[in-house]
């Protein structure tokens, strides 16, 4: 009896020691591997704007847009045409009060479009200009992460941040998540406020969120987005595949200095501006 108790205590003691000591031992032996991992993370962090590691851009088609504000300040009425073309193509209602406003592409001043850029001593033409703003079709869209029903999602084939209005429950989490204000909520039935219908496109109903879809339905027909088509020939809006080195948009991006909206948030917007 006595002997057995002694044996049990010995085994228990050794087991306890091993249990406590094992993590320390593992940490000691794998210290070299850990150190190199840490180094890699640091070099990644150096690339990132605010510390998170930046994964490589996803392969495949990634649609994007360059907006050349120099062209728009030369012909300011062109932006009105682009907005009107979008409104017509997508059955967008026109409300008088700003609370109900539905916006896919709209105008905003520099300090609202680029709130983190200094607007101290801005060039006169930039200060007065109306910037064209629309959904940035981010590579890492916060709206998609916020959506509880997967009503908004990233289309794998082309990188468009699209919406399935059938699934939207109108919770407006995506509106809170979007740092660009690119989403609008239908507070009331939009139908009576639509001036004329595009019979090939649906309207929306009360209680859903809507946004720019980069004209997915027009791209399928081989057409350019409605806004891009409205400024055809001027180069004010260039649309194309950001991952295709031969595309028109890449030629522009390679040549010109461009800025993105709130790039420091890490959403990786697909819309670039030449100011």
């Amino acid at each position, binding site marked *: 009896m006595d002997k057995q108790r002694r044996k049990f205590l010995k085994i228990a003691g050794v087991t306890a020691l091993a249990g406590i000591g094992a993590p320390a031992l593992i940490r000691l032996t794998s210290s070299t591997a850990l150190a190199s991992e840490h180094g890699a993370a640091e070099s990644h962090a150096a690339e990132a704007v605010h510390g998170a590691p930046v994964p490589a851009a996803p392969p495949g088609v990634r649609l994007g847009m360059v907006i050349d504000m120099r062209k728009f300040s030369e012909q300011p009425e062109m932006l009105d045409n682009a907005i009107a073309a979008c409104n*017509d193509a997508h*059955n967008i209602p026109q409300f008088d009060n700003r609370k109900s406003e539905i916006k896919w592409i709209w105008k905003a001043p520099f300090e609202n479009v680029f709130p983190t850029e200094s607007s101290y001593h801005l060039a006169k033409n930039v200060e007065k200009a109306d910037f064209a703003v629309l959904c940035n079709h981010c590579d890492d869209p916060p709206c998609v992460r916020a959506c509880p029903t997967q009503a908004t*999602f990233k*289309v*794998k*084939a*082309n990188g468009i941040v*699209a*919406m*399935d*209005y*059938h699934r939207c429950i109108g919770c407006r989490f995506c509106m809170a998540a979007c740092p660009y204000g690119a989403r609008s909520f239908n507070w009331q039935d939009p*139908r009576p406020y*639509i*001036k*004329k*219908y*595009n*019979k*090939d*496109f*649906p*309207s*929306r*109903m009360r209680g859903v969120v809507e946004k720019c879809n980069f004209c*997915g*339905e027009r791209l*399928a027909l081989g057409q350019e987005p409605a806004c891009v088509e409205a400024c055809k020939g001027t180069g004010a809006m260039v649309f194309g595949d950001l991952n295709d080195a031969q595309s028109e948009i890449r030629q522009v991006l390679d040549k010109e200095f461009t800025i993105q909206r709130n790039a420091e948030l890490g959403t990786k917007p697909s819309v670039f501006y030449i100011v």
Partner: protein
Amino acid sequence: MYNKGTIIPGLIIFVLIVTFPIWFNGLKAGTLPKPELPPGGEKKCVMPVEYMRANHMQLLNQWRDDVLRNNDRIVVMVEGKKYRKGLQMACMKCHSNKEKFCDNCHTYTAVKPYCWDCHLTPKEAASKEETH
């Protein structure tokens, strides 16, 4: 049996009330709906008639997911004519009268699909026609 005099007439009245909708219509299911055939005279649909009758709602959901999520907006060819996948862009091109085609059966079976909350019926679309 106690209270035979009240229980049996009571049961008879109960059964009569419960079966009221059946016998009131003369043991008939009412006139069967006859959805209008395409006014343009098209004879062939994207799928056989029997399939469409039973499963058109699944097909519409499939098209919705294809178009919106899978970027598969390919056209459907029926007898050499091209249609773009979609309720407004394919179905209503032939079945151009929603009231006489869709509503006919939906009213009879008391289903209320919410398609037309967003999608435009040909009539609605024509009410504010694009001028250019």
